[in-house]
Structure formats: structure tokens, C-alpha cells
């Protein structure tokens, strides 16, 4: 019984602390996201789990994959144009560009490894089960 309580404390502790630690390290309240659509195929695939780094104080560049807030929730797309205080994004798999968004709505960039977004296939599906409607499109 004491062992079980200890395991429970460890699990709850990890579940509570890891997201908070990541949020602090990556400087964003949304450090982890699940990809819920194929609009960035094949760079990001549906069900991928990705890490996001906050964009505060960093410069946005064309070609970077960013996460931004919109009326549907969150979107992860690539920057195709910078227009002053606004950015124009597009999903790699989409034919059309998205409507421009304010840079203040951009909450982060995907963390990359050797020039490619760091992604964990299928792990995002777990998050999608628990957070229906809140994960990026």
C-alpha cells in the first residue's frame, strides 16, 4: 500500500511537473502539441507529437514552422511571407495561403533537429484523445 502511494505520488508529480518545467524551459504556455490534420504532410503527419519554443524576443523568418492562435484554436503552418506586423502562412499540403495573422498571435516555433521538426509519430494521438478540439490543426 505504501509502495502504491509512492508510485502515485511519483506519477502525479511527473504529470504535473514535466509540462510546467517544459513551459518554463521553452518559454511558452504550450510547449507540447499534437498534430491533428495532414495540412503539413509530409513534414508533419497527423498524430505527431511536437515541441514548441516560444517566440518572444525572437525574429520570425520565412520558411519556419510556427504555431498561431486563431478562431478555430491553434494552427501549425509554415511562414511564406512576412508583412510588417503580420505573417502569411501556408500548410505544405495546401494549395492556398492562409489569411495573414498578427505576429502577436504566433505563440511559438517548432523545435528542429538537423533542420527538420522534432516529431514523435503516433504519440500525439494520445493527446488528441484527451484534448479534443484544443490541439493545433
Amino acid at each position, binding site marked *: 500500500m505504501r509502495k502504491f502511494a509512492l508510485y502515485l505520488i511519483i506519477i502525479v508529480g511527473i504529470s504535473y511537473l514535466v509540462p510546467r518545467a517544459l513551459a518554463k524551459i521553452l518559454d511558452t504556455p504550450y510547449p507540447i502539441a499534437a498534430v491533428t490534420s495532414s495540412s503539413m*504532410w*509530409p513534414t508533419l*503527419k497527423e498524430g505527431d507529437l511536437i515541441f514548441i519554443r516560444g517566440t518572444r524576443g525572437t525574429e520570425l523568418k520565412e520558411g519556419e514552422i510556427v504555431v498561431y492562435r486563431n478562431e478555430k484554436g491553434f494552427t501549425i503552418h509554415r511562414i511564406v511571407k512576412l508583412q510588417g506586423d503580420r505573417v502569411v502562412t501556408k500548410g*505544405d*499540403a495546401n*494549395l492556398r495561403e492562409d489569411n495573414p495573422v498578427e505576429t502577436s498571435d504566433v505563440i511559438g516555433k517548432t523545435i528542429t533537429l538537423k533542420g527538420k521538426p522534432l516529431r514523435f509519430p503516433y504519440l500525439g494521438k494520445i493527446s488528441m484523445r484527451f484534448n479534443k478540439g484544443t490541439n493545433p490543426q
Partner: protein
Amino acid sequence: MPMQKTLKILGYLVLVLIVFFVALEIFQAPKFEAVVNVVDGESKVGINPTTERLDFGDLSRGSTAVRFVDLKNESGFKTWMYVRKTGELAELLEVSEGKFSLTPGQEKRLEFSLRIPASAETRVYTASVRIWRLPQPL
């Protein structure tokens, strides 16, 4: 004691038969090859030369095509069906229903739709679609 031994042997036999039957159903599952040739240009849609294959022909980026597979449960049991897609094209191929049950004699038309994304390369993409069937005793 001999009665218990006989029951044990019968139990093993039933288990072996169930495993054999399940394995047979998995290996003999209907298999369809899905193929598409991504071509340059806009709104180019090729013809579907056969109905046995999920052949989407030539498609350009942004185009969508639909193919159908008709299923009929010809066994005497209610059967659980599971559609499994593998291969590169599987990520782009949408199926109307992935898991369902069919009662004896029931028919179902599965719709496979494919949309070619703007990021697709101009080449041939393939996938394998298997439809696994398992008798549903209850």
C-alpha cells in the same frame, strides 16, 4: 482422472483450432493495391482502368478521387471487419469506415477517397489495403 485429461486435450484442440482459424482469416484477408501517379498541372484526373485495384490513375496536386470496394458477408456468422492501410499512400487515403460488423448476407460499400496534397512529388505512390475479418460470436 482420464476424463480430466480428455477435457484438457479437447480444450487444447479447440484453442489450436481458434488460433488456426484466426491466422487463416488474417493471411487470407482480401488485399487491394492502391496506386496513384501524381502528375504536374491542375485538375488532371486519369481514368480508373480496373475495379479490382484501388487504382486512382493520374492525379494532379489538389485533385480528389474516390474509389469503391463492395463487401458481402457470405459466412454464416456475424463478422467483425477491420480495414488496415499500409504504405506511403495510406496517409493520404481516407476510408469511409475502418471498423464495422456485418451480419450474414449483409453488404457494404466502402468509399476510399484520395486527395493529392500540394506537397506531393510527381511520381507513383502506393499502399496496400487489407480487410481483416473475424467471426463475432456474441
